[in-house]
């Protein structure tokens, strides 16, 4: 299904197209990785709503990214329950091993590191969200193992992309 078709399907759930802006932005972000101006305008055009309405939402809600993020967005929760269970030390560890500061992306664009407000998983604090998945009860050892898995996963994706790119010429 194309992005337009997905957005139109989502919009059918509402009596007012403006309500569909948030679902449409989530679909567009999944498609493009982030939400640059032309994508926001495309969303507005598909829904037939004012472009400013789309800009207003894209810049208000924290899950929308108007700037690119790395292949893996590491979102470490540092709210009270996670803080009490050691999230500060985990942030320092991530900054050290990734050689970036909070808010930055690694030069190879593999990881973006952020801290976020409560992820609603305080029973397994400290918690980090990566893509769709939550990783809880973290310590530095588990973090390192997770980073290794993500690097391996990235290697496979990049390897598959290279194979796909090579195949037409073969």
């Amino acid at each position, binding site marked *: 299904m194309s992005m337009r078709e997905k957005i139109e399907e989502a919009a059918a*759930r*509402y*009596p*007012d*197209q*403006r*309500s*569909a*802006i*948030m*679902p449409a*932005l*989530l679909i567009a972000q999944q498609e493009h990785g982030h939400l640059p101006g032309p994508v926001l305008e495309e969303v507005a055009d598909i829904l037939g*709503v004012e472009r400013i*309405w789309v800009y*207003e*939402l894209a810049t*208000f*809600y*924290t*899950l*929308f990214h108007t700037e690119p993020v790395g292949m893996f967005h590491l979102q470490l929760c*540092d*709210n*009270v*329950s996670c*803080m*009490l*269970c050691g999230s500060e030390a985990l942030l320092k560890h991530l900054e050290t091993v990734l050689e970036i500061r909070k808010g930055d992306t690694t030069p190879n664009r593999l990881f973006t590191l952020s801290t*976020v*407000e*409560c*992820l*609603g*998983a*305080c*029973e*397994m*604090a400290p918690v980090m*969200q990566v893509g*769709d*998945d*939550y990783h809880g009860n973290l310590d530095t050892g588990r973090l390192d193992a997770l980073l290794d898995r993500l690097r391996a996963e990235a290697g496979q994706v990049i390897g598959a992309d290279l194979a796909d790119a090579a195949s037409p010429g073969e």
Partner: protein
Amino acid sequence: MFEPVLLKNIDAPDGHVLATYEAGGGYQALAKVLREHTPDEVVELVKQSNLRGRGGAGFPTGMKWGFVPKQSDKPKYLCCNADEGEPGTFKDRIIMERDPHQLVEGLAVSAYAIGAETAYVYVRGEYVKAIRRLEQAIAEARDKGYLGAGILGSDFSFAIHIHCGAGAYICGEETAMLESLEGKRAQPRLKPPFPAVAGLYASPTVINNVETLACVPHIVMRGPHWFRAIGPDKSPGPKLYCVSGQVRKPGLYELPMGIPLRELVEHAGGPLPGRRIKAVIPGGVSAPVIPKGGLDVGMDFDSLAAAGSMLGSAGVIVVDDSTCMVKVAARIVEFFHHESCGKCTPCREGLNWAVKVLRRIEAGEGAPGDLEQLEKLCKGIFGNTFCALGDGAAMGLRAALAHFRDEFAAHIEERRCPFH
């Protein structure tokens, strides 16, 4: 012996699928109300149960439903508040992930009661697994005839749509949630009119929390007297408590409303080895902290209010004696500052200022008069904002200053954090 009902399927490996839910008596409440009760009778059952909303404010659910006008030329809507952004709270996520049909049935029974044919479940966008499980449950229920047109041969038709949030705590405030559902920035609306009269798309709307809706099928099947027999008469029923922080067995516990806080912490294994409890935040970070001397308070709306705190979302955060309370207070106020929607100046500017003072004190750079300055800021914020976000921050900070003033003063006097 207290018998859990809300969490009875939680540990089943297939607790999220229809067959498991049906095997435990699922959807019998929906069939029963369609067969035996008028919508008004269902509202009456919920009124008799004295169910109070589990989202934080504790407003009587049956009374809220009763505010919906009987005759309306506009469609009526049911909205489920599944935004769950209050730090320390995770109960609704667990219901949606592990027993989503409980919510689906609760929505269907509640929609029948208020005369709604459409519901929107506003789930925070981070909860990807919960969203997928809920989508699956809705599809299963629709295939089985529990949702859709002419449910179970009746003339009641009902559809549920999921609306994903995108990372704004303020969407938990009901009118901000409606703004968000309408595709706007989530800023609270002035009340009145209340949503029951003019809510989503200016139509009559009821907004209930996930746990509140999950209670409804049980009230139908077991009767309002069963519900009222659990816990205090003024706020009865089974209750989900989220326990986290510096405790041995963090997790979700279903226990009677009104259980003493001390007993609840014991259920969660008590403090970590070699540590003592210093304080407990009983209802998510909006709830004023309770020092160790106050742990015998009952965990219900009225007892906690009388003790100067609140049940809120029942997100219980345990803090032990290794932790600096200035740091905890600073992190809490920082959260509210980050999540302020920016509509009201006292909240937007006052919290920014408070965070700066708190971080300065924590770093050992506090000045004489800082604590009085913080109290002045709390006074300027509390009661002067559209919604309760500013109030929550001010109440939390006031309580921390009142109960742990010596720790704040030590930071200023010693020009360092005594815990580092």
